[in-house]
């Protein structure tokens, strides 16, 4: 167990370092930030001064070594754009996304499990068909489109919800809903599929031969065994939730890390790009390890 965690952690650290290196060089290839930070009519002198001030005049491998040296001292650099520590910027935004993501993935998983298993309990029924169609539509709709239409209908047309922003619980409804759509749609499919094969498995036959009540067979035996693949997919979806978060955050003005990442890439705010990647990649690795541990909880056959 401990050796397993150690191995996983060392793999993760290697991957994070690989990722940071990759992104470091890739972002530096995207062009000179001075063009973006200085007015168009700045003089060449001012540009040179800007580059010197931010260490961008050094050869790229020196910049990288400097970055690594600072990293070892837990110095993650200064944001070009925001005039403050890049890590502070990233850590400020991260909890906002995390909150949203946790709510979205929890709700969509719970809902998907309910809908998916009810659909699998009676395959081919009206409920099954509607659930399949709704979930597929959810998984197929472009999220930014749903978000804007949602605002136009519920905030502008009906005046039921605030258009955007943060604050009351009502502010959570639309961003959560939009973020949930795709995970929910995909998870319903996964739950339904694994439930169908679980329900066809031998131990369900045993449970029926034992005379267990139907709910107990579906939720107690079949569902419990279907959770493993569901957790795998939910974990992957949680990882890619940051993708959805980018869109949701920029439309709903949610000050999270997805939007921050996009902005800092567009703005060539390298230190912030690196810090946000470090934060999200670390979070994703922790998530992956947590999922592995969850496997062991869910399936007694799995031991590390």
């Amino acid at each position, binding site marked *: *167990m*401990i*050796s397993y965690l150690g191995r996983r952690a060392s793999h993760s650290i290697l991957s994070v370092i690989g990722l940071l290196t990759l992104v470091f060089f890739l972002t530096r290839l995207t062009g000179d930030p001075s063009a973006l930070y200085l007015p168009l009519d700045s003089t060449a002198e001012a540009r040179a001064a800007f580059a010197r001030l931010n260490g961008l005049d050094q050869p790229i491998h020196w910049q990288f070594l400097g970055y690594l040296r600072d990293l070892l001292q837990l110095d993650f650099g200064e944001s070009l754009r925001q005039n403050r520590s890049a890590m502070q910027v990233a850590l400020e935004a991260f909890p906002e996304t995390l909150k949203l993501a946790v709510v979205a993935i929890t709700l969509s998983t719970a809902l998907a499990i309910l809908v998916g298993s009810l659909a699998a309990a009676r395959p081919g029924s009206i409920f099954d068909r509607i659930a399949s169609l709704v979930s597929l539509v959810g998984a197929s709709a472009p999220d930014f489109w749903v978000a804007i239409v949602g605002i136009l209908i519920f905030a502008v047309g009906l005046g039921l919800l605030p258009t955007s922003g943060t604050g009351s619980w009502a502010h959570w409804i639309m961003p959560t809903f939009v973020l949930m759509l795709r995970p929910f749609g995909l998870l319903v499919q996964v739950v339904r599929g694994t439930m169908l094969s679980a329900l066809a*498995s*031998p*131990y369900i*036959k*045993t*449970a*029926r*031969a*034992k*005379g*267990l*009540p*139907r709910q*107990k067979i579906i939720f107690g*035996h079949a569902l*419990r*065994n279907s959770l493993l693949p569901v957790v795998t997919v939910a974990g992957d979806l949680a990882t890619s939730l940051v993708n959805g978060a980018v869109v949701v955050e920029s439309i709903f003005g949610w000050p999270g890390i997805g939007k921050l990442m996009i902005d800092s890439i567009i703005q060539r705010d390298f230190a912030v790009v690196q810090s946000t990647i470090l934060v999200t990649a670390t979070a994703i690795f922790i998530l992956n390890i947590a999922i592995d541990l969850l496997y062991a909880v*869910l*399936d*007694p*056959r799995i031991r590390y």
Partner: protein
Amino acid sequence: MSNATILKVEGLTVDFLSDDQPVRAVDDVSFHVSRGETLVILGESGSGKSVSTSTVMDLVDCPPGDIVAGSCLFDGVELSGLGAEARRSINGRRIAMIFQDPLAYLNPVYTVGRQIEEVYESHGAESGKGARAKTIELLRRVGIPEPQNRVDFYPHQFSGGQRQRVMIAMAIALKPDILIADEPTTALDVSVQAQILDLLRDLQRETGMALIMITHDLEVAASMADRIIVMNGGKVVETGIAREVFSNPQHPYTRRLIAALPHGNAAEAPNRRSTAIAGETLLKVEHLTKHYELASGAFSSKRTFKAVDDISFEVRRGETLGIVGESGSGKSSVARMLLGLNAPSAGKAVFAGENIFDMNGKRLMAFRRKVQMVFQDPYGSMNPRMRVYSIISEPWVIHRDILPKDRWKARVAELLELVGLLPEHAERYPHQFSGGQRQRIAIARALASEPELIVCDEAVSALDVSIQAQVIDLLADLRTRLGLSYIFITHDLPIVRHFADRIMVMKDGRIVEEGQTAALFGAPRHDYTQSLLQAVPQPKWLTQAQ
């Protein structure tokens, strides 16, 4: 023994609906069973024996199942068309069922205790502490050691035999009137099989329940049955008192089955040569050892598991060596090492004067031509995406020098005919054949590279009895025609008895006994060999007579 009929099935007909044409799985089947009685339903795969009892338990899904006709009268109640709640009060409480593969049929994520307690709770018999106490008691009864601890173990933490005991405990928890056992010992080693059958007999004596036992194994059937029905193609072909059916089978199918049963008389072994083979040594294995390092925990040191522990033997040209052992005895590891699929930890194997473990490149290729393998599972040993032609000709693709390409087609046809198939079968896919036919294809493939030694790893174990005999006949025939040598690995003593010249008994990675077949069967020296021989089920009427 009471004569009160507890279950009476009459005219049961079950279809499986499929494209356009329903497929009849059970056709007008009738049987009955009384309290305290054991009814055996005997049949090979596809005979409809499982479907008929599953219908009694309401385990057939409709659709695609379709119960066309029939009635099931249980203790005066008509079971077909019973409401869900009424049905539930019968399943598990009045009629219980155990299955072939307890690892699959037990829920892997719950402790065995929990799964047994569930029976008490869902029928409102016991709950909480009471259920747990009863569960522990039950586990003790079915012979699980340390039940108060093992009650919290998960199914995968038990051995195969113990898992079947757990299944039995679960089934008898509420003392049902009928226990249906669907191939309960098929996946088990002979010695374990004997224990489970004993347990079932004991429990039946204690509770007076009726036992319906489904099996394809004539010996098991004979050892358990009071009455027997024989099914074939969904129909009951013969029914009667067990002893009479066995001693005087009426239906041709039953006769054929019983003829295939290896008889106690060793003199009637048509495929075994009586004289010892005195040819040159083809393969000489010395001190062969295979160790596996077991995954170590953070605090425990590494453990090694000795799959094969310092064994030596030899095979002469033209000889058939039988290696017999139960699961985990290391017999398959020996085969895999000889085929170069796994590397040995120590030892050597000299084939035609050269240690095969030192070979590489051309020499290894040459060796691979000379030694071929026939695997247990005729379904798994062939690539499902390849036509028979490609399967048989694959050795020629790999070993370019065996045969020029323009002769492949003709040679495939020849080989197919040699193993008793038709040349036109070359264009088919493996799934279009039956199990026995597939094993013939596998043998044809093995023959394609013109080998000197064929290793058969449980090559007939997965086949029905009647098919087993045919494949053995084929192997024996090829041996004489082509001068082959065999290493024949099996867990099934009766089979080697009729085929092997010499037998080697393995247990826990070691050879415990070795000798000429007749001698070994006649006077087994080692305890283990003796117990293996004794574990072969004896007909009930014989044991009762004793």
